[in-house]
C-alpha cells in the first residue's frame, strides 16, 4: 500500500490540468469520403438488424445500335439490354467494443486535475472518470473508423477484424483488379515516368469506374520524391502553361474542402499530359497499432487517386447488449452525469462528421458493488459502393533505389 505523501509547507497554486488526449487531433479525411450527402452517399443506422444488404447495378458506356431498315429485330452482339441485371451484397455487421473500469477504491483518491483541497465527492470523481473513459473510447473508435475507411478506399476491402487474412472476415467490395497498379519503375528512380503512371491510372478510372478523377493523395515519402523529380520540377516552371502548381496559394474548391477540414494538406494541383486536373493532397496522420508501433493511414510508397464525389456509404449496425430500459438510462445518467443515448463527443475530432448515434454506451456494476464497467460499442461498415471510382498506385518507392 502506498504511503500517503506529507504536505509540505509551501503555499501553492494548482494550474489547470493538461490532458494530451483531448489535444491530439483525431483526423477524419478517409471518413469524409463516406456518407457525404453531396455525393449521393448514405449514412444508415440499423440498430435492430444483424445484416445489411445492398443491390448494385453496374453501369456501362455502350452506344446505341444502328440496324438495316427492313431487318427483323435481333439480339445484338448476343447481349440484350438488361436494365435489371444486379448483384445483391449481404453483409453481417462487425463489432467494436471498448470496456474500462472504475474501482470503488480509485474514487477515494485524488483524480488528475482535482485540487487537493477541493474535497470532491466520490460520485463527482466517478463522473469525471466516466466522462474521460467515454471520450477515450470514442477517440479510439474514430481512429478505427479512419483505419477502416482507408482500407476500404485503398484496397476496396474492409476487415471485420483488424489484421485478419481470413477471407470470410473481410468485406470485399469487388474492386476491379486493374485499379490496383504496381509501377515497373519506382518514382524515386530517375527513369520513372510519374505523369505517365498517373495518366494510366486515370485511364483505368475512366474505363472501369466511368469517372474522371479530381484528386490524388501522396504518401509522405512519395510526395518527397514527386516534388524532387526533375520532370515534375520542369513542368512546374513552364510559364503560361501551369501544368503543376505547388504552393500555399491554392484554396481548394469547395467540393474538396471536407478533405482539408478532416486533416489533409492541399499541396497544389496538376494537369496531366493527357489533360486531367487533379488536386494533390498529403496526409501523414496515423495511429498506434496493437504492438505500439505508429503507422500512417496511407502506407509508405502509395498514391491514391479517384473521384471525390463517388458514392461511398457508411452503415452502423446494432450493439451486442440487451436493449436499455428506462431505469437503466436513468441510473446511467445519475451515476455518470450524461445521457447514455446521446453522450458527449470529444471536441478534438475533426471535420464534424462523427456523431453520437454511431456509438452504443452502457455500464454494469460488479455483484459486490466494488467496480463498475463502462462499455462502448459500435458496428461500422465503410463501403466503397462505387468502388471502381478509386485507384491505388503501389510500390512507388523502390527498396534498393
Amino acid at each position: 500500500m502506498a504511503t500517503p505523501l506529507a504536505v509540505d509547507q509551501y503555499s501553492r497554486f494548482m494550474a489547470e490540468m493538461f490532458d494530451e488526449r483531448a489535444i491530439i487531433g483525431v483526423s477524419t479525411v478517409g471518413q469524409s469520403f463516406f456518407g457525404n450527402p453531396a455525393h449521393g452517399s448514405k449514412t444508415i443506422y440499423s440498430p435492430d438488424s444483424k445484416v445489411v444488404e445492398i443491390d448494385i447495378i453496374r453501369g456501362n458506356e455502350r452506344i446505341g445500335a444502328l440496324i438495316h431498315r427492313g431487318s427483323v429485330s435481333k439480339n445484338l452482339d448476343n447481349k440484350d439490354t438488361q436494365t435489371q441485371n444486379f448483384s445483391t451484397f449481404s453483409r453481417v455487421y462487425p463489432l467494436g467494443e471498448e470496456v474500462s473500469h472504475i474501482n470503488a477504491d480509485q474514487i477515494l483518491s485524488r483524480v488528475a486535475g482535482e485540487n487537493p483541497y477541493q474535497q470532491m465527492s466520490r460520485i463527482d470523481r466517478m463522473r469525471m472518470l466516466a466522462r474521460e473513459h467515454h471520450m477515450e473510447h470514442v477517440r479510439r473508435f474514430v481512429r478505427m473508423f479512419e483505419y477502416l475507411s482507408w482500407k476500404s478506399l485503398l484496397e476496396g476491402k474492409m476487415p471485420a477484424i483488424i489484421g485478419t487474412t481470413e477471407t470470410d472476415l473481410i468485406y470485399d467490395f469487388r474492386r476491379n483488379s486493374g485499379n490496383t497498379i504496381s509501377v515497373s519503375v519506382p518514382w524515386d528512380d530517375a527513369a520513372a515516368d510519374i505523369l505517365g503512371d498517373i495518366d494510366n491510372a486515370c485511364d483505368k478510372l475512366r474505363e472501369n469506374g466511368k469517372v474522371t478523377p479530381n484528386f490524388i493523395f501522396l504518401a509522405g515519402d512519395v510526395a518527397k520524391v514527386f516534388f524532387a523529380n526533375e520532370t515534375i520540377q520542369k513542368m512546374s516552371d513552364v510559364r503560361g502553361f501551369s501544368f503543376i502548381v505547388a504552393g500555399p496559394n491554392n484554396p481548394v474548391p469547395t467540393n474538396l474542402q471536407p478533405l482539408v477540414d478532416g486533416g489533409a494538406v492541399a499541396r497544389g494541383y496538376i494537369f496531366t499530359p493527357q489533360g486531367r486536373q487533379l488536386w494533390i493532397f498529403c496526409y501523414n496522420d496515423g495511429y498506434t497499432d496493437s504492438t505500439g508501433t505508429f503507422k500512417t493511414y496511407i502506407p509508405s510508397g502509395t498514391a491514391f487517386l479517384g473521384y471525390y464525389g463517388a458514392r461511398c456509404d457508411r452503415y452502423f449496425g446494432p450493439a451486442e447488449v440487451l436493449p436499455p430500459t428506462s431505469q437503466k438510462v436513468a441510473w446511467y445518467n445519475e451515476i455518470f452525469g450524461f445521457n447514455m443515448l446521446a453522450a458527449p463527443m470529444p471536441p478534438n475530432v475533426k471535420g464534424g462528421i462523427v456523431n453520437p448515434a454511431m456509438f452504443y454506451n452502457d455500464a454494469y456494476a460488479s455483484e459486490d458493488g466494488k467496480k463498475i464497467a463502462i462499455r462502448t460499442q459500435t458496428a461500422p461498415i465503410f463501403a466503397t459502393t462505387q468502388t471502381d471510382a478509386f485507384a491505388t498506385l503501389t510500390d512507388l518507392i523502390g527498396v534498393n533505389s
Partner: protein
Amino acid sequence: MITWQGPGTLYHKGRTFKAGDTIPAGILSADRISEFAHKGKLKADEVKEFKPEVEVKPKKKSKAKLEEEELLKMIEEEA
C-alpha cells in the same frame, strides 16, 4: 520466365500486365524483380537475393522485459 501474380496489375509504358501474364525481359530491373518476388507479386525462374538496404532491426526490448528475462535466467541457473 517472369509471371505477374498480383494482386493488382503491373504497368509499364502503356502496357498493363494482369495476373498470369508473362513479363518480357528488360522491363523490370533485377532489384525490382527481387522486390516483387519477395512480396509474392511475381514468380521468376531466377531471383536475385532480396536485400533491402535499410535493414529492419528487431524491436528493442523494454527495460522491464530485459530485467524480467534476466531474473528468469538467474532463477533457471540457480535451479
